[in-house]
């Protein structure tokens, strides 16, 4: 069932918001004595200027896509899965663990990789269900539970990197010993990008889109999210649906973590999640919780991330400027959204 207003209107809104954000950031750049036009040109060429750069953007796009598709499910269930960051982390940890277990066994690498990614999805799902159980059975709001579990997950990863899984000799922030190349997801030519990872990311958003749009499961999740009390009276086991929502989101986040290990870093590093969990929250929100918009918004954020790597090199600006731009963008979207609501108040009851 189609929801709400036509998609183009959402697109116009996002465009307008992006425009506003660009205006603000230009002002900021001008204050810093940098020509905004040149800065944006650099960012553009640094992100989509060449096949290599584009591949880098896609490398960032895949985990964002997976995380944001998972979050579409939890948002539909009315849940703020802030624990997503920890779920990505646990995905990476479980994947690393499985790879370590099997790397010396005489199994075909393809099977080992599949098992490792499966383990990562399981790890993410378990971590998410944990946050869910804290909510449904412990009365802990998922936002606080999730935040707590994020700390635990990153603590666990650090402990593993500096403890049991440390490199021969001394543990370091550079992570665990890299896995043999046979256990890397195959890459496209000389690019850092893996076709398998790309396929998994696309599969994730397509599945979630179809799930929410056309299945009884998706419809019931939405009902629970909009009015849990009524959903319960209508016979939907609300707790089970909330936990399933968490599990699904966690599995997708875990897949993102697994790909960070198997396709990008080939080892566990402390910052393995690269903040994609939180960024995914922004992507999902800015997409207006629509599966169709997620790939575009995720691509934009990925490009922003990669493109801004140029800024410190060329202008001696801090790369955190991309963070400022992202923040601006979010604020502008909220402002445009609010303005629209004000403008068309009669749509509200």
């Amino acid at each position, binding site marked *: *069932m189609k929801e709400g207003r036509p998609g183009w209107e959402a697109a116009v809104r996002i465009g307008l918001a992006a425009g506003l954000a660009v205006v603000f950031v230009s002002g900021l750049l001008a204050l810093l004595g940098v020509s905004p036009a040149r800065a944006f040109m650099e960012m553009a060429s640094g992100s989509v200027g060449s096949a290599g750069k584009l591949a880098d953007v896609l490398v960032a796009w895949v985990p964002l896509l997976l995380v944001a598709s998972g979050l579409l499910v939890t948002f539909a269930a009315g849940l703020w899965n802030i624990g997503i960051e920890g779920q990505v982390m646990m995905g990476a940890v479980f994947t690393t663990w499985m790879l370590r277990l099997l790397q010396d066994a005489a199994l075909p690498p393809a099977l080992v990789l599949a098992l490792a990614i499966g383990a990562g999805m399981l790890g993410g799902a378990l971590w998410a269900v944990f946050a869910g159980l804290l909510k449904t059975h412990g009365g802990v709001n998922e936002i606080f539970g999730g935040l707590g579990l994020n700390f635990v997950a990153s603590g666990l990863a650090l402990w593993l990197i500096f403890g049991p899984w440390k490199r021969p000799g001394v543990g370091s922030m550079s992570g665990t010993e890299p896995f043999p190349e046979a256990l890397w997801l195959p890459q496209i030519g000389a690019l850092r990008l893996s076709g398998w990872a790309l396929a998994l990311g696309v599969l994730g958003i397509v599945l979630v889109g179809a799930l929410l749009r*056309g*299945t*009884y*499961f998706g*419809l*019931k999740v*939405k*009902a629970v999210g*909009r*009015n849990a*009390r*009524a*959903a*319960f*009276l*209508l*016979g*939907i*086991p609300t707790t089970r649906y909330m936990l399933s929502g968490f599990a699904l989101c966690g599995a997708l986040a875990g897949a993102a973590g697994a790909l960070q290990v198997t396709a990008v870093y080939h080892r566990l590093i402390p910052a393995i999640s690269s903040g994609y969990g939180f960024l995914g929250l922004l992507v999902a929100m800015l997409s207006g919780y629509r599966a169709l918009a997620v790939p575009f918004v995720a691509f934009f954020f990925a490009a922003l991330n990669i493109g801004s790597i140029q800024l410190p090199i060329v202008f001696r600006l801090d790369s955190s400027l991309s963070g400022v731009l992202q923040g601006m963008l979010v604020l502008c979207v909220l402002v445009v959204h609010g303005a629209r609501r004000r403008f068309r*108040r*009669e749509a509200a*009851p």
Partner: protein
Amino acid sequence: MNIALENISKRFGEVQANEGISLAVPAGTIHGILGENGAGKSTLMKILSGFIRADSGRTFLDGAPAQIRGPADAIRLGIGMLHQDPLDFPPMTAVDNFLAGRTGAWRLSRPDARRELEERQADFDFRVDPGARVENLTVGERQQLEMVRLLSLGARALILDEPTTGISALQKDRLFAALRKLAADGKSIILISHKLRDVEMLCDEVTVLRRARVAGRAQAPYDLNELVRLMFGRVVTREPRLEVPTGGPLLTLDGLAVEDHRLRLAGLNLEIRAGEVIGLAGLEGSGQELFLRACGGLLRPAAGRLRLAGRDLAGEPYPVFRDAGIAYVPAARLEEGLVAGLTPAEHFAIVEPGGGLVIDWKLTMEQAERRIAEYDIRGAATGPVDSLSGGNQQRALLSLLPPGLCLVLLEHPTRGLDVESASAIWRKLLDRCADGAALVFTSSDLEEILQYSDRVLVFFGGQVAGPVPASAMTVERLGEMMGGQP
């Protein structure tokens, strides 16, 4: 305040909700608005109170053209509206609700507000505990609070959208006395109602809407048949209750005790037979809701047994009750009954999932069309349920009941329905009785209770009298028992 609406039109997508409606309410009068479900009554009043904007037409207040851009504008101009579904803030206390919407001073003084609330309540003999949380108040109390709040904000005109559904007779008397007093003070009152008797008692003039237009006007004294004809375009008569022979015992309550934080019902013994209709009478909050929720598995009994066809269900979770064929229809439609934002068709897909994972929308839409036709729900199957008119939401809620139930528990089943739809709904409910189901319902309409029940339980402050056969009762006697007279 003199209010005049001129040529108001409003369209929602494909639905023309108001079309060229004009209305004049002089200061110091009570004006009734009648009309079948979906006629456009709430829409017109939402336009006057600034909740929605008309597509065209003008509003005059005390002769001067007024631009009402929002509820805040409306209240500044002195217009306050009590909505069909309350718009207050349930988790907050009564005083805090009372303070909500104040402008001016930044610092809130609760003691002052409390004093003011109590003073204003005393004017009307209202008795809302200022410290109580709004979610624990009855519908009637919430209404009293909202009324006092609007008056404290300077309302000189009050609009009430179906204020008498879901409140007790006593609260209704207080409300009417208050409205008369306000009118005598020169305030203007507009009352939307489906209850002709209420309108007859209270209103100086009525306007009848039908299909978005003014169908006619009348002044007191009224010819009720003429009003009905204006509302429906024909004469509607209440049909006699069709008799359903009752069968064997269906639900047996054995020393059942139920309690919540305000009330305790104890030692309930009752045998409900198949095909039977049990009416629950009582002032609101006297224990009927507890009783219904316990029978529906939503409230765990503190003691006793609840046997359905021999099987003890006490203490079992709600899904077990549901699977056993017991259904519960709550009074708060948008809070507990329907999922705002989903369409009626989506609701049907939820309660009647086809096999498989993927929703067959074609089939679902066909089923939806069938149910919509069967329950005469006016409004699109593909728009959100919350954009249906109040009465149509109620029909949608009832249309969600699955077939083949053995016990249907209903809170105010015809709340907000016009006379014609109410009897259509009862026909459907009684069809279930003919199939061997039993019905238990609450209603604040004593005539409805006596007309449709076989037996009546009367609740008073947690005490339960009866069951008494409805045929041996009169409205007066029922009223006495509800007031606690043995």
